[in-house]
């Protein structure tokens, strides 16, 4: 039985009920309602907000995929350099939509998905693995907020997801061919002036 989040009560009750014995504790995933229920009212934060990053030319694209009924605050999104040689500019974010809460005022939020474009430069031409730190914070429409989440990401090389992928190392095939060619050339140089050592 599945219901949409918005239609469900905001409650998740962790109840010990008949299964509980005096002095014992009940182990239960916290977002499950009730002892015998598989009903999910809230998602764990890493499922509600999935994040990934990809290098695309001289920018890093950080993309969040946001579950239905959840949102991220625009003002709470930060991207920082994590590897020592990396310098990142402020993330370029779409405007988002306005959400007005009588108790928190008007904020810009994102639903479904959002991509931050982060221009970067590297001081050591790639001696260190490229690492960024992303910080973001969001809530469920049904009445639950997650504390700010911090993650270190290794942005993968290549075009952003959804674009036909190219080999992540474009020079790899060139290197293989060049290496094979070098050995062939070396063989030819050694071969020059020699006769085939064939049986008479």
């Amino acid at each position, binding site marked *: 039985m599945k*219901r949409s989040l918005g*239609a469900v*009560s*905001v*409650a*998740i*009750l*962790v*109840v*010990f*009920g008949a299964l*509980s014995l*005096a*002095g*014992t*504790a*009940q*182990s*239960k*995933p*916290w977002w499950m*309602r009730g002892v015998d229920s598989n009903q999910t*009212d*809230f998602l*764990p934060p*890493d499922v509600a907000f*999935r994040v*990934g990053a*990809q290098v695309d030319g001289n920018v890093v*694209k950080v*993309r969040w*995929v946001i579950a239905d009924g959840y949102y991220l605050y625009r003002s709470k999104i930060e991207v920082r350099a994590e590897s020592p040689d990396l310098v990142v500019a402020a993330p370029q974010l779409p405007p988002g939509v306005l959400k007005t*809460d009588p*108790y*928190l005022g008007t904020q810009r939020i994102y639903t479904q998905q959002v991509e931050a474009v982060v221009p970067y430069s590297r001081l050591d031409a790639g*001696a260190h*693995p490229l*690492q960024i730190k992303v910080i973001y914070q969001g809530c469920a429409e*049904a*009445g*639950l*907020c997650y504390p700010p989440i911090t*993650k*270190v*990401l*290794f*942005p*993968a090389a290549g075009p952003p*997801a959804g674009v036909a992928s190219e080999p*992540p190392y474009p*020079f*790899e095939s060139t*290197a293989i061919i*060049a290496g094979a060619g*070098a*050995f062939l050339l*070396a063989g030819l*140089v*050694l071969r*020059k002036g020699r006769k085939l050592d064939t049986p008479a």
Partner: protein
Amino acid sequence: MNNPGLRYLGAALIVLVGVWAGLKFHSVRSGEGPVVAVPAGMASAPDPRENSAGDEVPHPVVPAHLPDFSLDDLSGKPTSISSWRGKSLVINFWATWCAPCRREIPLLKTLAADWAGRDLTVVGIAVDHADKVREFAGEFKIDYPVLIGEEDALEAAAKFGMDSPALPFTVFTDRRGEVVALFVGELHRPQADFILSEVQNLNQERIALPEARRAIADGLEAMAEKKAG
């Protein structure tokens, strides 16, 4: 290049260049970090140093009895949760940056007033910076006790099984300190009244603890279904 020595030298140089090129490309490749398969919709791999909490289901343990912890109150005085021993508690974990938490404050004030004199106390636990909480508590005229903490408040939340707390969540105990219910998300009046009526039944020994817990689970489930239906 008829000199065989020169030929060998030339060949060796070419091979060395080939080996050098191979090593160079290898180092560029390994410098890009691990290549890890990513789920659909994801643009890159997660940091392999982190636990991929992702879809894994953690199993926090909600205690049967109220755990002990101590936090500063609004005036900065360390206060133990056992200060209210002998009373039923509504312990509300919240933060000033959390919209549903702010929306709950009027309800919590009403509950505190309605249940005053009936051995029930509302205690707010702000997982937040003290100055922000004091400012907010003044602005919203919070008149029930509020304890404040950052790391130590997170530790208190963890004692209720909420290791990576989402806010708000509210713990209900009876007067003996038994944890009767833990309610995650924004609390509304019907749910609060219902849980407190069962706490009252428990305190007056009209029902036993397992029955009260079961009644609350079933009652809230029914309310959710009614709302959804």
